[in-house]
């Protein structure tokens, strides 16, 4: 790596799990990592955050699944994936064989689904920790999204933490589509979350003026990209201010090292680069390098010194 890496100590941690770089992929934006191998040294990045896995293989939704929007995009993929059996048989061994850290995103529609997934991932080589995608409809609550209800969100997190490998930190991924994100953050932290991933996409809609119908097959979709960055940063700021001791994995529209720096200054101890990877498949490594330069230029000896620095 570059001389700049020795100038600034970029090491950080997800909960108690140390990582050499604070820059990770984002769930749903880098598949399960292998596709980025031609562009990025996957062993050097913080971790590959895998696409949310469920108990069974999922086809995902019909197309169109994507609409470009100003400085962002709307997606409605529907969590297409191989299911936990496929992930355990193919994707996680591929990553582990290469020494790539995996932060595994899990999703479900019942509390038991999440717990069953956490159980299956206990002790799996290369699995650094779990990110709990609670932005899923809860079939036992008429489809209300777990992340929008502090009680349902806490139920999932405590069930996962109870059965997950003690060596694997559990991060809850929060939705910005709530009136009080600090309230949800407090609830899931009290339920045992070792950290918080912030933020998931915002719910959005695009209508085609020619067909005069919604563009996406799934009608609504998740908005991501630089367009949502100020919203994400505000969420990280508010939660860090309320609970400075809780580790935050910040994400939402990060495209450059200076974008990442904003999240660190707001209180994130690591960041995920998501939609920017579609624009630049080497973005995760580039953001790491740019962040190291930005920290050095500002006189920081380590990344850790900069976490939450904007709150002074």
């Amino acid at each position, binding site marked *: 790596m570059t001389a700049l890496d020795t100038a600034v100590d970029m090491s950080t941690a997800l909960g108690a799990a140390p990582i050499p770089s604070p820059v990770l992929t984002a769930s749903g934006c880098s598949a399960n990592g292998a596709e980025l191998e031609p562009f990025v040294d996957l062993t050097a990045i913080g971790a590959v955050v895998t696409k949310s896995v469920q108990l069974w*293989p999922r086809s995902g939704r019909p*197309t169109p699944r994507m609409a*470009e929007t*100003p400085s962002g995009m709307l997606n409605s*993929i529907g969590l297409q994936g191989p299911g936990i059996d496929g992930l355990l048989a193919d994707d996680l061994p591929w990553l582990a064989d290469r020494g790539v850290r995996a932060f595994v995103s899990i999703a479900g529609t019942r509390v038991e689904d999440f717990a069953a997934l956490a159980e299956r991932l206990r002790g799996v080589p290369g699995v650094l920790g779990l990110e709990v995608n609670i932005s899923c409809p809860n079939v036992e609550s008429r489809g209300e999204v777990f992340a929008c209800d502090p009680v349902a969100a806490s139920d999932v997190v405590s069930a996962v933490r109870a059965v997950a490998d003690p060596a694997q930190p559990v991060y809850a991924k929060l939705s910005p589509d709530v009136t009080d994100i600090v309230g949800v953050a407090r609830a899931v932290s009290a339920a045992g979350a070792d950290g918080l991933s912030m933020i998931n996409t915002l719910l959005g809609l695009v209508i085609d003026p020619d067909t005069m119908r919604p563009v996406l097959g799934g009608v609504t979709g998740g908005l991501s990209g630089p367009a949502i960055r100020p919203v994400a940063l505000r969420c990280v700021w508010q939660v860090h201010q309320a609970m400075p001791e809780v580790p935050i994995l910040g994400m939402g529209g990060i495209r450059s090292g200076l974008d990442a720096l904003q999240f660190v200054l707001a209180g994130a101890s690591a960041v995920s680069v998501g939609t920017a990877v579609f624009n630049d498949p080497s973005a995760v490594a580039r953001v790491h390098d740019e962040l190291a330069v930005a920290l050095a230029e500002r006189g920081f000896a380590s990344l850790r010194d900069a976490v939450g620095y904007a709150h002074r």
Partner: protein
Amino acid sequence: MTSLTSPAARAAHPPVQRVVEVSGRRPVGAYVELTLAAPEIAERTEPGQFVAFAVGGPTSAHLLRRSIAIAGAADGAVTVMVAPHGPGSTWLAGLQVGDTVDVVGPLGRPYPMPSDGTPAVLVGGGYGAAALRGLAARLRAAGSPVIAICGAASADRLSSVDELGELAEVIVTTDDGSAGRQGRVTDAMAELLTSRAPGQVGVVYACGPMAMLRAVAEAATTAGLPSYVAVEESMACGVGVCMTCVLPVVGEDGRTRFSRSCTDGPVFGGDRVRFADVGTLPWDVVGADAMGVVAP
């Protein structure tokens, strides 16, 4: 159903990402042919593959990559035919010689080659015909007689007729009759298949709009011929991570999956793409049950 095709195999080389210079620019009817000084992409390219461009520069508000089939790859340069229609492709078409652009490639699976000497029909719709140039050259080098059918709505939307003419017998069709015969490529193809003795056509390749690919694939399958089509689905990344460009495709095990056009394609066996089901979620797609779709 016994399939006439095998799924296209992966390309021999992984892609690279490079910022490259535009070394040539030539307006061709409604299109702009761009040539890029991209030796590392050119040397890796196989016919049927594509490149993905970042558009608008490093601070662009248009984040999604624009994927375009490779028309030519030789002497350290890659050529693409840009059809300006939205802001991204219009930006690309406006690039001038000496400008730079971030490009990833070559991407996707190439057209499978038939056994040497197999007579081939190539069908190109609009700018899609450009994507068949490299294939035509490779087929000829392997001793295959090649017939190319190039069609478009009008004369200004034809492409690569001259280039293909150097390698193949070319039939031109336009919807409005402004060049070649009036009609569609599929009319010319149907005529060709009925007028030639059995065995005079061994394989069909196509690139163009989805409706055309569907008609070509169905005609080939009906005639008992293998066909390979390069699909044009909107992609966000081009490299396999976004999962937006999926199509229902029948695999070797006979099961249908939502397959990525970028990494599982863009070349698919024409009899394997379930064209009629594009944009829907059929119950027998692997994993449809988890989406709540049940068998009728």
